[in-house]
């Protein structure tokens, strides 16, 4: 017997992390103009060069139009209806974790990151960004002893302006694209990591982002620098409260790896995807790019995208140094009315540069999933090598899976391979598992996990576990 769709129990899982914490926010009225940009900068006590940089970004932004080339559809966004600054009221300088706002603490408890236990149990330093301003940073001293800087972006601007000034915008210029320009003008806060020469960061650095106050788009800015011979693994995970109106998130992440430096950047993105009728959900329009600036540098992106109403992100690597390596591993899941347009760009400039792209897209319900990637090999990049594999899995007859790979090769010594497949879950595979007494839902999870295995094995252990759970939750009730 072949399992039928009606064999399956349709489960409706409420968004587990959907709650709003009521704390007094210091919020700007909606709207954006040069004054607002200057006010954000003033509020954060930034030096004049940074204010100028923001203003230049704002002026670039006013000359741009929102991109329309991707396969995502959404009503036009009224950028004047968004409030561009929201911060929890500063009470006083915090000496210990006990002084953190109890409500904020409670929120973190619900998210499963009890700060006081983090130190003792997990060995993971957490820089918790709560509505745009960092409220607590742990393990700072331990990292400090090694010369590693891991702090909020605002703090980095105050304490290490020379580093921020040298690298800010060096990978994603302030005029790069519509949403990057917007972020550059109004970015609120984010994380900053600097790993000095030859230092291997002893722990996974992790940040939990959380969008909280209503109507505030969150504009994170992350900058990670691995100096010569340094290594760092960075984890980013996201959850957000349930909302009816769409919320905009336009983050920018810049990675710089100098000679022999290595950066591993992992993301599990689980923002509110909207309800099953496609109402609400986060618009996740992110610019992520890394630069292998020196020889033998390596940047690796791993992402598991299960949330957001719309995901629009292309974590990219500029392979400038000779023998540098870029990697992109991605699992993107779209269920209900979710849309994902994601992929990567590998720009080969240096000799003998190598890149690997593994992308797994899963579409269910009315979900639309696009892989859009670019591999560009310039004439100087002799001996460049690329391998790309993009597979799509379709569940249900109303979803879509699309592949748009661009391969631009200007060097004859390059070897470029791209392959992609699209199929549904094999009925014989399902039958085999069902026959052995495995429930259909479990059987599907097993198959899906197998489909994603090559990506999951790139994730740090804690994340891999979370990712598998997320995938199961995201696809509940979607199996056909």
């Amino acid at each position, binding site marked *: 017997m072949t399992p039928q769709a009606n064999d399956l129990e349709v489960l409706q899982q409420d968004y587990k992390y959907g709650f709003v914490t009521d704390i007094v926010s210091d919020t700007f009225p909606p709207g954006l103009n040069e004054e607002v940009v200057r006010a954000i900068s003033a509020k954060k006590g930034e030096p004049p060069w940074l204010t100028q940089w923001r203003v230049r970004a704002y002026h670039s932004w006013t000359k741009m139009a929102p991109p329309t*080339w991707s396969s995502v559809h959404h009503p036009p966004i009224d950028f004047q209806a968004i409030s561009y600054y929201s911060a929890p009221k500063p009470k006083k300088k915090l000496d210990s974790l006990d002084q953190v706002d109890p409500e904020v603490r409670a929120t973190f408890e619900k998210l499963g990151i009890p700060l006081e236990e983090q130190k003792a149990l997990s060995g993971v330093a957490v820089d918790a960004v709560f509505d745009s301003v960092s409220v607590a940073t742990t393990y700072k001293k331990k990292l400090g002893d090694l010369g590693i800087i891991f702090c909020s972006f605002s703090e980095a601007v105050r304490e290490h302006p020379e580093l921020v000034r040298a690298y800010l915008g060096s990978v994603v210029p302030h005029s790069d694209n519509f949403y990057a320009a917007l972020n550059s003008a109004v970015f609120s806060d984010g994380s900053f990591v600097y790993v000095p020469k030859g230092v291997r960061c002893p722990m996974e650095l992790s940040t939990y982002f959380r969008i909280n106050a209503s109507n505030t788009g969150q504009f994170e800015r992350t900058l990670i620098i691995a100096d010569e011979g340094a290594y760092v693994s960075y984890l980013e995970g996201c959850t957000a409260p349930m909302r009816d109106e769409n919320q905009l998130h336009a983050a920018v992440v810049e990675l710089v790896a100098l000679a022999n430096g290595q950066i591993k950047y992992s993301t599990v993105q689980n923002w509110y995807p909207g309800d099953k009728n496609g109402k609400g959900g986060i618009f996740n329009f992110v610019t992520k790019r890394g630069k292998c600036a020196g020889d033998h540098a390596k940047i690796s992106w791993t992402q598991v995208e299960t949330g957001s109403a719309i995901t629009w992100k292309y974590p990219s690597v500029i392979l400038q140094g000779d023998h540098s390596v870029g990697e992109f591993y991605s699992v993107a899941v779209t269920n209900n009315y979710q849309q994902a347009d994601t992929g990567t760009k590998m720009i080969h400039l240096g000799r003998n540069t190598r890149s690997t792209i593994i992308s797994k897209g899963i579409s269910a319900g009315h979900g639309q999933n696009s892989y859009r990637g670019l591999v560009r090999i310039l*004439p100087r990049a002799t001996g460049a090598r690329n391998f790309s594999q993009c597979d*799509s899995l*379709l*569940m*249900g*007859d*109303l*979803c*879509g*899976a*699309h*592949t*748009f*790979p*661009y*391969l*631009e*090769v*200007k*060097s*004859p*010594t*390059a*070897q*470029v*391979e*791209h*392959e*992609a*497949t*699209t*199929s*549904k879950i094999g009925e014989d595979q399902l039958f085999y598992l069902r026959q052995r007494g495995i429930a259909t839902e479990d059987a599907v999870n097993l198959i899906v996990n197998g489909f994603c295995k090559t990506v999951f094995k790139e994730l740090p252990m804690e994340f891999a576990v979370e990712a598998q759970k997320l995938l199961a939750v995201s696809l509940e009730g979607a199996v*056909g």
Partner: protein
Amino acid sequence: MAGADTARRFVTALTTLQGAQTLPGPSWLQQARADGIARFGAGGLPTPRREAWKYTSLAPLLGTTFSAPQAPSADRPLARDLRGLVQAYHPATDDPTVLTFVNGHHQADHSHIGRLPDKVVVGALRSAAVTHAAALRPHLGAIATFGDDSHAFVALNTGFLDDGAVVLVPDGVVVPYPINVLHVTTRPTTPTAIHPRTLVVLGRGSQARVVERFASLGQGAYLCNAVTEADVGPGAVLQHTKLQNDSERAYHLSTLAIRQRRDSSVTCHLTSIGAALARNETTVMLNEPGASVRLDGLYLARGTQHVDNQLSVEHVAGSCTSDQLYKGVLDGKASAVFNGRVHVRKDAQRTDAHQANRNLLLSTQASINTKPQLEIFANDVKCSHGATIGQLDIDALFYLRARGVPLEEARAILTLAFASDVLERETDGHYRTFAELLLTTWLAQATAPGVLA
């Protein structure tokens, strides 16, 4: 913007200078021309900002003023050259059917209708538009459409729709011999633009093989903007072969549009070798279940040639199959584009679609932009695509050289081997031999010392 002005002037010049209004034909044809001119005038020349033209710039066209082609003079040297060309391209034996068009006009002197089954119509469009209007009208312009701005050159072709080949095969008739169509452009004194249109209509259960060749006498500069439309009836079988061997100074922009009915089968084979700028567009609509299509292509480019291959297969109905295999060999400073698109519509279940593009770069300055796309809106499908770009295998070259084969010859052997699996998919032995000869000649002329020397 100066660029936009230039483009606008070019469009105006192209649409007015040539005097589409003065072309003969029935009123419905006049109306179709007026629509085409209006659409091309309104849409203008596509720029690289448009996704379908991202890698192909039409800027080189802008500096040229194209005039309407002169009727070929009846002088004897031309007639002799033409005869030579017709003979070179077609087998002398077995009474072949050849329709020859010079500068877009049918040449009865150099055409020959060989053995054909009864009721099969093979002739020139200009006369068929009058004699077979009822059979033509439902199809002409209905397969190669230009409703949106994406098919500017189909609109332009329709604007100047005048002559070309017509093949009408009634239900159940099998045409056992190939129908050859030869488009020749003579070396014009000033650059000319020709717009040949071919229409093939196959009735239920019929079979035909159409071979279109584009060639030139002398290395003239001209624009060949060809459109071929094919309506393939239920259960019909069409084999379409196209050889693009235009002058190395020419612009060849062509569209092959195919519409398939239930259980029909189409095989298209392209060899693209000539023209300074060539664009080969193929669009296939699989409108009813059980239809299958295979698109094979081989493109060769060297010097500063640019060749752009655009394929679009639309799986409208379920249970259809499509298979694309395009291979490219690029030398010198040549550049090439492959943009293959497979679109599986929502209800096109049990679709089986495959796409492969393989490229061989022989020189340091050659470049390739390839984009195999899949857009899938159905779940019960098997789709795959693959693209590779690389160079000749150094070990294989070493193997041959170690056995005393000179470098150039070794390169030629390996390149021929690379191209041969596309050529082998061509079922017509005569054409295959001819294409192999062209390829061998092309390889022998390759001047670039190559990166592996």
